[in-house]
């Protein structure tokens, strides 16, 4: 039984709740015990850095402090944004005493203390290294054999800090997908940015970036895309109608979380994996796969 602290972040409570549902379900199935941080706050995301580095670091450090004061376990952050921001805070506290000092003072006045001991980790790494492919394969109930999956990592899991995977050609998700029996679709844009918040602020820009990804994934024969970030999943899925209209091309493609795929392979009920929350329903996957797959 492995234990971790767990930082869901705002998205997993909001638009990305299917990520949380599937992640929790998979952890349960692989008997990983998660302890959600008590009264955590928003990590600050990327928006905060644009305002003030002290505020950005302070927000993240409060969460790190909560984790450190309540347990010694590593802190899991499934949202790529949170994962990066929390890691970055750790780096900044160590590298910039000027910022670290001020932030720590402010925290101290709130009765909080962070010594920098918390290791922030991503579920991809934990499933791959702590649980291990063998352990997962043993628990596979219905293989996804024949399903062509495009693993999409997005930016912030491997950049700027390549902690557990290669910066230029990450493979951790590939391995997990192959463990489910599915086939990995090779494509050059695994880590190309989906546009982040640009889809909301400057639709034209954001949607073209998503189009490039969807177009290339389809061109490579992907039947479904696996993501590891709520924003990536959202951008790639919910704008497909607009993108199709804008670029006069059918880009419909189910966008799942890698945890949902693993969950399916583990034979967990679709509802538990939040599959009903798909806008582009996953059962558009071709018949031959549906035949031998639970989807």
């Amino acid at each position, binding site marked *: 039984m492995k234990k971790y602290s767990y930082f869901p972040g705002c998205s997993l*409570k909001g638009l990305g709740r299917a990520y949380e549902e599937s992640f929790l379900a998979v952890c349960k199935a692989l008997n990983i015990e998660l302890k959600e941080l008590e009264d955590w*706050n928003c990590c600050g*995301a990327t928006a905060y*850095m644009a305002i*003030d580095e002290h505020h950005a670091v302070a927000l993240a450090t409060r969460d790190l402090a909560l984790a450190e004061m309540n347990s010694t376990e590593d802190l899991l952050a499934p949202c790529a944004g949170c994962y990066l921001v929390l890691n970055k805070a750790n780096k900044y506290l160590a590298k910039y005493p000027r910022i670290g000092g001020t932030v720590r003072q*402010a925290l101290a006045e*709130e009765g909080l203390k962070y010594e920098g001991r918390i290791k922030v980790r991503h579920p991809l790494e934990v499933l791959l290294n702590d649980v291990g492919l063998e352990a997962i394969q043993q628990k596979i109930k219905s293989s996804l054999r024949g399903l062509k999956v495009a693993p999409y990592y997005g930016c912030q899991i491997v*950049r700027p800090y390549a902690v557990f995977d290669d910066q230029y050609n990450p493979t951790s998700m590939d391995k997990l997908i192959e463990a489910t029996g599915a086939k990995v679709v090779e494509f050059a844009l695994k880590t190309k940015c989906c546009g982040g918040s640009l889809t909301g602020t400057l639709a034209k820009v954001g949607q073209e*970036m998503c189009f490039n990804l969807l177009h290339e994934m389809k061109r490579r024969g992907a039947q479904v895309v696996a993501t590891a970030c709520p924003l990536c999943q959202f951008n790639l899925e919910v704008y497909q109608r607009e993108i199709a209209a804008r670029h006069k091309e059918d880009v419909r493609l189910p966008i799942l979380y890698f945890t949902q795929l693993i969950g399916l392979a583990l034979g967990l009920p679709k509802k538990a994996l939040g599959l009903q929350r798909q806008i582009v329903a996953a059962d558009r996957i071709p018949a031959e796969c549906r035949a031998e797959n639970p989807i």
Partner: protein
Amino acid sequence: MLRIEREIRYEAERDRSFADEIKKMPGCELMDRCIQCGTCSGACPVSIFMDYTPRKVIELTRSGFKQDVLKSTTIWLCASCYACTVECPKQIGITDVMYALKQKAIEEKVYPPRFPIPVLAREFFKMVRAKGRIAETKLAILLFLKTQFLKIFGMQRLGIDLLRTGRFSPFSLIFPESMKDPAKLTRLIDRLDAKLNSRELEARLESGNPSRPCCPGGAK
């Protein structure tokens, strides 16, 4: 018709302290190493939309052409994907430079009115300060109300989709996702601001720099 303007730059137009201000910001220390190879621009997924490529922004920044930089769309288009940062052969934190420039632009309020990105930053900031967490849908709606009011009607389909799949409930607009006790965070931020302001003061007494509003748009 053809608009002709003089494009020459005079030394007098350079803000000589600008580069140093930026270099003081975390991650920007190595900016002077830049050899203008353009790897950042090539690696950037958004550069195809930028008026100045990231490479050019670095050059303009280090030469002190402050207004050109702060007015460029580049700093706002940066999606923080860090491709430039990891690809830079001279290990310059280009993404961090962009953050620094965004800060400066917000500070000096040099961006188009109703330009959504800084507005998003501000709304984000306010919401976190008030609730400790972000309710994305509410944030999005606020954003559209304040920037591209009409667009919001184009978004109905999306809204319905999200409702249908239960990814957001109108309920959350009235009772958005929140910390149990958001005041905890508000207090923390205020304490931080207090420190920063006092530090600002010291800084100002030493050098004649203008004060920085501790948060944008006088959100507090």
